[in-house]
């Protein structure tokens, strides 16, 4: 029940922010559409069988600035590689162990790897993520597992 209320609240806030309307008629339309979406999501929850997750957590938002900083750094590295004359790449594959227990944690981990240019997650299988790295430096950085540690920390709720 609280989950339904949270969904409805979030949906209606988004509706208000995106439409910017406050006339009673349009507000009523908004309420009706939110109700329809909530009904459909409830039905989807029942048949999908996907784990109920309580993401995003507060600590997730503390992780984002660090991720943005990583994206910034690796973007500058890749830009430098593309612009240099000899195209100094040495592509390689790396197996990274993900220590997250939930599917959501693994998704965040793999997506963070893909979001930082220079590393791509190709395949997630059990607790192994296959990563394609553009250079030695990016391969070493992803193998060091800093992203893994940080995502696991927010997953465990510290």
């Amino acid at each position, binding site marked *: 029940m609280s989950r339904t209320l949270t969904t409805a609240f979030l949906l209606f806030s988004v509706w208000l922010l995106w439409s910017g309307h406050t006339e009673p008629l349009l507000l009523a339309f908004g309420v009706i559409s939110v109700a329809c979406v909530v009904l459909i999501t409830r039905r989807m929850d029942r048949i999908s069988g996907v784990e109920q997750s309580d993401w995003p957590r507060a600590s997730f938002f503390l992780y984002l600035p660090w991720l943005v900083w990583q994206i910034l750094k690796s973007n500058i590295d890749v830009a430098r590689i*593309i612009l240099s004359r000899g195209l100094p790449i040495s592509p*390689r594959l790396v197996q990274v162990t993900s220590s997250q227990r939930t599917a959501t944690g693994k998704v965040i981990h793999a997506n963070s790897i*893909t979001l930082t240019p220079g590393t791509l997650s190709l395949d997630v299988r059990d607790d192994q993520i296959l990563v394609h790295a553009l250079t030695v430096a990016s391969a070493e950085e992803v193998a060091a597992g800093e992203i893994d540690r940080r995502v696991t920390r927010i997953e465990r709720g510290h």
Partner: protein
Amino acid sequence: MSVFIDIAAWVCLVAGVSFCIIGAVGLLRMPDFWTRAHAAGMTDTMGAGLILLGLMLEAGLTLVTVKLFMVLVFLYLTGPTAGHALFRAAHAYGIPFGEAALENSKLAGRSDAAE
């Protein structure tokens, strides 16, 4: 004050566009699919991020900024997800990694085992 915001927006937009063009050049210069994917990823993260940040600075604290921010959030959520689907399909299809990549990976595997 608004002059400073204008300058910051200029810097963000020009930097974002530069990252887009550099990524596009990388798309042409890189030798195979996997390395090209790195260049394309660059335009989606830094290029899009900086351009939208520049537009947010111009819009100020309005509903427009909220929408720009949501565009950014959606791009950052869907970009790597669609990318992962593409890479996984290419991997399953058997797009070759290139001799150098496989050779290097053996070395990387050995150093992993040593840890």
